[in-house]
């Protein structure tokens, strides 16, 4: 058991890969077995990941479940894993959403089932690896290869202009990450010039002394990589296309997990590596975030396509998260992290519901629906809960995150916060208006008459998410408890470096140690 706990992260990362090897042996024709087995293996993976939660010590900011082996000594790169409060919950979210999206695609994915389940599980490996890696080269390896399975998922099982969307998705994120790679290499070489050691160990690179002007340039390099992924306002154009054309499972993973990597990257890499630059550029990034909130909301209001609407709402929600993160107060960062999880849960659920509507009607246009509530009461109820969670109704999870973010940011950026608050109102407008047009009104489309309610599998697909919405809404303490040490350490580290540390080190000549 101690062995199991000690290498739990490695097991979590490579269990899906091992599953892929197992699935490769199964005949392509045997689709039922492939679906059931892959879903079962994803469930096992989720249960394994719960051990992380159980054995996670909430009273320390230090990285836990640390594993470290030499990997490429010539570059000073090591196989270095470890998680803190943030990555713990993101890994749990990843394993949960992978299971759910595999369960959700029983009906949606009709052809090439084998390739689909293999790519999903492969994607899981790289997602967990990205959250767990504390070595920059290892992180980059996982980060960038993640694009490939996602690209195939969008391109092979998507709808409409799937190839265009898939290629756009890859090229946008790839260009961003390549510039980011330059930033990493530069910091790596600066550290080498200061200490004479090649190392990609993140915890050591935190101590690199970088002058402020250079920090801002490097921050821009890293920013491009992460901002495309979030996506922040001017870099968001790939997102609606990719979300709209991807299959349901792809959208859920894309919204639920892949968008989190940008924020995670800022939290783990960009801000602690370049603290002074982050303080300097924070107002501008928050401005972009607030523009994103309003822009996403306005564009959502006029969308005719359900999935595109949910996709643009993501842009709006991610704006809140960026506002909270760059306001740099403990409360707002905690709120951001909570909101990060909320976004994964609620937007994932919304995409699942849109997927169910699409499976029944083969249309995503709002005008084709109307009066669904009369035919499908269960679906309507659960969908309403998700919508309200996304709007931020007190008692559901969205409220907690947005409330913390707004409270925390108000002290430092009052104007932006006030403007951002209006985003909550607009969220209510576009989501509830959409819900009203889809679910209520008279039945105009004759096909609605044949509309079937959710079956047991579909209920089980969304049930975990619905439970989580209520749970976080009423009792977020288990999560906040585990996040708080991380957040407080993050801030103290930041202020430490910002104020005194680098000056003292420079004066005493310790910057080279």
């Amino acid at each position, binding site marked *: 058991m101690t062995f199991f706990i000690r290498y739990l992260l490695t097991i979590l990362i490579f269990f899906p890969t091992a599953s892929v090897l197992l699935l490769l042996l199964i005949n392509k024709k045997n689709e039922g077995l492939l679906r059931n087995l892959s879903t079962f293996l994803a469930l096992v993976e989720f249960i394994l990941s719960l051990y992380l939660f159980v054995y996670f010590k909430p009273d320390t900011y230090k990285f836990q479940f640390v594993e470290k082996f030499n*990997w*490429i*000594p*010539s*570059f000073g790169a090591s196989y270095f894993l470890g998680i803190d409060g943030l990555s713990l919950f993101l890994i749990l979210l990843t394993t949960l959403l992978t299971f759910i999206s595999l369960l959700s695609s029983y009906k949606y994915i009709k052809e*090439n089932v084998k390739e689909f389940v293999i790519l999903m599980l492969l994607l899981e490996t790289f997602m967990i690896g990205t959250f767990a890696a504390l070595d920059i*080269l290892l992180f*980059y*390896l*996982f*980060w*960038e*290869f993640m*694009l*490939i399975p996602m*690209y*195939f998922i969008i*391109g*092979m099982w998507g709808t409409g202009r*799937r*190839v265009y969307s*898939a*290629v756009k998705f*890859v*090229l946008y994120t*790839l*260009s961003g990450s*390549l*510039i980011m*790679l*330059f930033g990493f*290499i*530069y910091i*790596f*070489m600066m550290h*080498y010039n200061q200490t004479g050691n090649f190392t990609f160990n993140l915890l050591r690179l935190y101590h690199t002394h970088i002058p402020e002007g250079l920090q801002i340039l490097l921050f821009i390099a890293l920013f491009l990589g992460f901002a495309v992924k979030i996506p922040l306002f001017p870099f968001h154009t790939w997102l609606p296309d990719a979300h709209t054309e991807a299959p349901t499972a792809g959208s859920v993973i894309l919204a639920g997990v892949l968008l989190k990597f940008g924020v995670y990257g800022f939290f783990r890499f960009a801000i602690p590596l370049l603290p002074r630059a982050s303080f300097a550029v924070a107002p501008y990034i928050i401005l972009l975030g607030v523009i994103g909130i309003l822009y996403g909301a306005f564009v959502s209001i006029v969308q005719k396509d359900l999935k595109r609407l949910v996709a643009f709402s993501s842009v709006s929600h991610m704006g809140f998260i960026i506002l909270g993160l760059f306001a740099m107060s403990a409360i707002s960062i905690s709120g951001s992290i909570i909101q990060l999880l909320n976004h994964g849960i609620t937007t994932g659920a919304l995409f699942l519901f849109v997927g169910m509507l699409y499976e029944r009607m083969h249309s995503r246009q709002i005008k084709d629906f109307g009066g669904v509530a009369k035919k499908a009461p269960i679906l309507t109820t659960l969908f309403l809960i998700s919508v309200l969670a996304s709007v931020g109704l007190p008692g559901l999870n969205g409220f907690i995150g947005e409330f913390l973010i707004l409270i925390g940011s108000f002290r430092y950026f009052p104007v932006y916060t006030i403007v951002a608050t209006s985003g909550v109102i607009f969220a209510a407008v576009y989501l509830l208006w959409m819900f009203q047009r889809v679910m209520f009104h008279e039945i105009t489309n004759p096909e609605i008459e044949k509309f079937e309610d959710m079956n047991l599998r579909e209920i089980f697909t969304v049930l975990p998410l619905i439970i989580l919405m209520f749970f976080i809404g009423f009792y977020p303490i288990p999560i906040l408890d585990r996040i708080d040490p991380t957040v407080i350490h993050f801030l103290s580290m930041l202020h430490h470096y910002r104020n005194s540390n680098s000056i003292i080190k420079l004066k005493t000549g310790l910057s080279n140690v």
Partner: protein
Amino acid sequence: MYNNILPAVYGLNLIEKSMLSIIPEAVIILFAFLVLFLTFFEKLAKSKNPYYLSLIGIGFSILYVLMLSGRDLNGFYGSIVFNSFEVFLFTAILFSGLFAVLVSKDYMKNSNMPNPEYYSLILFGISSMMFLVSSNNLIMIFLNIEFMSITAYILTGYFKGNKRSTEAALKYFILGAFASAFLLFGAVFIYASTGHLNLYEIHTFLKNIAYGGLIKSGGGMGINIYLTAGLLLFLTGFAFKMSLFPFHSWTPDAYDGAPTPVTSFMATGIKLAAFAIFLRVYTLIYNFNIINFNGILWLLAVFSMTFGNIAALLSSNVKRLLAYSSIAQAGFILIGIIGGGFYGYSGTLFYLLAYIFMTAGAFTIVIIFENSDLISLDINKYSGLGYKYPFIAASMSFFLLSLAGIPMTSGFMGKFYVFSSAVKSGYNWLVIIALLNSAIAAYYYIKIIVKMYMPDKEMLNSSAVNSEGAFGIINGAVSDGLIITIIICLFFTLLMGIYPQIFINFANNSAASLWKI
């Protein structure tokens, strides 16, 4: 005391030491002649014997390289050297030759061209590359480049009646002859200004003069001008073989017109040998900053990458696309040389090795899908292949991703290595341009993957999915030589991407021996 005994025990007098230093090449040449003799016997010539004999020859050569590894040999009055640098490059060249032979079996059987001559030419080509890499003398360099080029000209035009093939060979030959003239002229100038042919002696000579301050002041003897002219001309000759931007124009035509196994051989072997010998000459002679050669290389690298990528973006023929991409790759490899130092040269060697496996792998798959009547292949022919041939298409995707420099592949590690060496030396803009170029490059590599896995409905009709090839894939099974090549390439591409440390050590050893004068 042992100094007197050891030569007696090992018998290493001058002649024997010289012979020892060229054993790997000599074995290959021996087998090349053996294969050639098979033409006298009609029955043997038509059988598969030349193929197997070449494989055995390459196997023996690898064996000798392994046996000699770790030794430091100087042969023929210093004009041939053999040390860890050569061990690394011989291994790479022999792999490249091995792939060329392995993939030729079905291709040649199908083409009705004389069999043994082809294999013996490939073997001669391999040996010439090995000679080139180990030569340490201006005359040896020129001779071996000519030797290598002549085999390449013949192989390019090997399809005798075929217009494209002949045209390609003629273009390659005429331009190549010019390049050789430049190279020779450069060698003459270098000899005129330094008075030495041996690279080590030139190096020593220049070092003494540099410390005496003569180079900067012009030396009073006009050394500066002649040396500069010589080095520039020499660089031109090399740049042609490395297919760098202004000297690249032969590449797409020659790669496109040549039989595909030969294209693969040219893209891997010749490029590798040219880069390796350039690396040696560069460290020994160019590094004295007579003029700023790094600035010239900077321009060459930037133009090669940008031109190669943009041209590849526009081409719809797989072989031409890979040819342009090889120009771009040459630009990337050059970054390691510009970055310089131990780190940079080791990175260059690592990238070269990685490049061999991924390029050979990609070309092997082009061969599989190539029909006898289609010398060139349109990208649209690849529509939907991913579903019919899952393993081959997946391997192709992997090689292309490696060429694009996506992590988990050797291409990423190679790029990372050379880029970080350039950042280390302060060439930040070069790296940024290179990274943007990688993003462009990703587009056209992904274009092929799109065709294979996400085909349009109309394209499926013109696709190669339904047409059974005359070779390569027979009754749904890929023939053994091709599949072995793919598996070897796949294995190394993956291993170098995931656990590159072994290969980095190998490259480090090799780069270290560059300075062993």
